[in-house]
């Protein structure tokens, strides 16, 4: 077992990794609460936006324009998907709606590999101006981008939680996510609310995509399937509590990185999100049957 001082830098990097999972996980839960759809294409959409931003920067566009375009691309794709496929699937099981987003994921994944190829050994990266400045903790530098990432997670958690609970639009979104037909009969402008929900979620995916592309990697495969690890936090919060998702993500990130210096376990550390999610879920479901199906609603 390595000495305590060896673990210190991993606490810092673990918090940063937790911030990464939180950004993705919180985004997923917010989308689920607002639209009733577990948007598994969250990572792919963000990756697409980030790659478009990269191409713009390569073509000479200033940074801030590329970020706006990234968010716009993610928002448009998400809005498009929501408007096209939201209504026909609205009566179906949440599982079916989630699997449908896997279809979108595959489409985006194929498009990304076609357009941004790696056939010549290309290695791409996005740099934000906050990357190379920061402060030192435990002999490693924490850069401002990571702080922003973590802060973004906190802000999104608080703001969207409040938005969904206290505003009219937020309440309408939650009602629609629960049951579209009944909400429509109550006189809520269903199409507008739906569009607003999907658009907002798309913006979220774009922002997260940009930050994740900077903090993790600008690689279509990595970013698209990062959602799988973030799902662990989402599952631990049982798709309900945004705050719990955030907390679970931080814990997962910390545990993952703290295992790194332990030589016997280090090769298995990528299992952390999966093991924690499985254990948490199985412990919680000991007493009750857990479902998210129409039948039992």
């Amino acid at each position, binding site marked *: 077992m390595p000495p305590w001082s060896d673990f210190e830098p991993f606490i810092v990097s673990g918090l940063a990794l937790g911030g990464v999972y939180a950004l993705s996980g919180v985004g997923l839960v917010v989308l689920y609460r607002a639209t009733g759809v577990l948007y598994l294409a969250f990572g792919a959409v963000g990756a697409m936006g980030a790659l478009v931003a990269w191409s713009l920067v390569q073509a000479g566009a200033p940074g801030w324009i590329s970020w706006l375009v990234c968010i716009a691309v993610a928002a448009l794709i998400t809005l498009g998907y929501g408007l096209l*496929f939201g209504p026909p699937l609205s009566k179906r099981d949440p599982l079916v709606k989630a699997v449908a987003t896997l279809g979108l994921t595959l489409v985006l994944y194929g498009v990304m590999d076609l357009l941004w190829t790696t056939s010549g050994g*290309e290695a791409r990266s996005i740099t934000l101006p906050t990357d190379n400045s920061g402060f030192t903790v435990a002999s490693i530098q924490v850069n401002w981008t990571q702080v922003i990432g973590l802060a973004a997670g906190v802000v999104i958690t608080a703001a969207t939680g409040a938005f969904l609970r206290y505003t009219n639009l937020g309440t309408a979104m939650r009602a629609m996510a629960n049951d579209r037909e009944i909400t429509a009969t109550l006189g809520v402008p269903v199409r507008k609310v739906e569009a607003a929900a999907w658009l907002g979620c798309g913006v979220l995916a774009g922002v997260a995509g940009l930050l994740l592309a900077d903090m993790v990697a600008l690689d279509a*495969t990595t970013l698209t399937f990062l959602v799988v690890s973030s799902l662990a936090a989402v599952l631990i919060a049982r798709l309900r509590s945004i705050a719990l998702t955030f907390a679970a993500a931080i814990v997962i990130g910390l545990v993952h990185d703290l295992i790194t210096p332990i030589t016997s376990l280090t090769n298995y550390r990528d299992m952390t999100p999966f093991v924690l999610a499985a254990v948490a879920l199985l412990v919680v479901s000991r007493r009750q049957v857990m479902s998210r199906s129409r039948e039992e609603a």
Partner: protein
Amino acid sequence: MNRHRHAPSARILIAAAGVALAAAGCSSSSSSTSTTTSTPPPSATSAPAVAAVSTSQCGTKPGVAATGTPIALGGIVTNQPGTSFTDIANMANAYFACVNANGGINGHPIKYYIETEQTNPTQIAADARQLVDTDHVVGIVGNTSIIECAVDTPYWAKLGYYVIGSGIASQCWGTPNNITVNMGPRYSSDGAVQYAIAQHVSKIVFDQSNVPGTGYIAAGPNALAKAAGVPITDLTENVPISDADSVAIKEVDDAGPNGAVVLNFTPPEALVILKAAQTLNIEDHVKLWGCSTPCNTDFLAQSLGPKWNDKLFVNAELAPPDSTNTPTMNLYKAILKQYGKAVSGGIGSFSQMGFTEAEIAVHALESITSGTYTVATVNAAFKAVTNYNTGMLCQLWTFGNYPMHIANNEDYTVTPDNGKMVQAQGCTLISSVDPQIAAYRADAGTAALAPVAP
């Protein structure tokens, strides 16, 4: 009812149209990025030379298109998201196109069949059979795949094919009928570790991606470090890496202030680790960083900042394109420009490898005097290539009748210099402390060492 039936199909059409538009409209983005990196900046020495080189030098009868019966050659390359070696095959194809436009092989054009695979063993075996049974290829050139050498070697051996490729799996060097123009992960990592040892580091951390054969790959660096009395730690990472920060911290902590971290990853994965080290501000906490050949791309040099100048030392299996001004290098650049539209990475080690393999194949084919191009004659010609100056390698290249082949065992070291990879050390032999290198040199004798005359 009918209305509902048709509307959803319309949704799919709209979605498909959206995809098509995106693909059509954005398809210029990837080519535009490659043009910014593929055209070399006009430098005093190379600009006039490029203008003077005519691609017609590639063939024996300049300007005369070949019209005889085609000679069929084949190649198998990996092409999946994150790992794509199509540039190597496409560059070989470009070279063959040039040869076909300038006389061919005694008037015969070369027809090159490229099979791509997604690391599925059965698919790879099927690709080999397609090339042999359906396309009737008489030679295999340009194979670059994570596992193809492992899967197909018994098949090639049974049929008498002697494969010239750019390998990755251990069988690409350790079997009688496979040979490469590159050194591959083990010997290239040897080169990087060797350079680090020469800088008198006190510890080495060797980290590689968890691809098949990590033990085989690590055995070389471990032998070198052990012989030099330098402690070495072996690590592996599952790719793609999503926690580069912890990887970088782990490596730096283990190596210590006077140690070296040597990486063996594909360019995107190496980039995330190096970038993480930079944003964590720990890149200077070790004496130097090393990397095997995949890091030798200008893309990597551009993505990394100036902090890595003379900090990162990459083993380079092929001559650095920017600082080499030989006729062959200029021919390579000219062919790339004229025939290499499908080569998305432009000038770089991938296209250099494709060029070199095609060059050797053509040289061998041109040596066939009988005029018959069968599996037997073509592969005998491949095997007979001896002391050939490819103009891209440190050594003369020999196939030879040996149980194993490490034809390229002498390399350069390069380092980033403000967005480009430049030479840090000239041709250096990989140490015979690596038992496989020793075994090969014992078999091949002087042919193993054969330096190119300066």
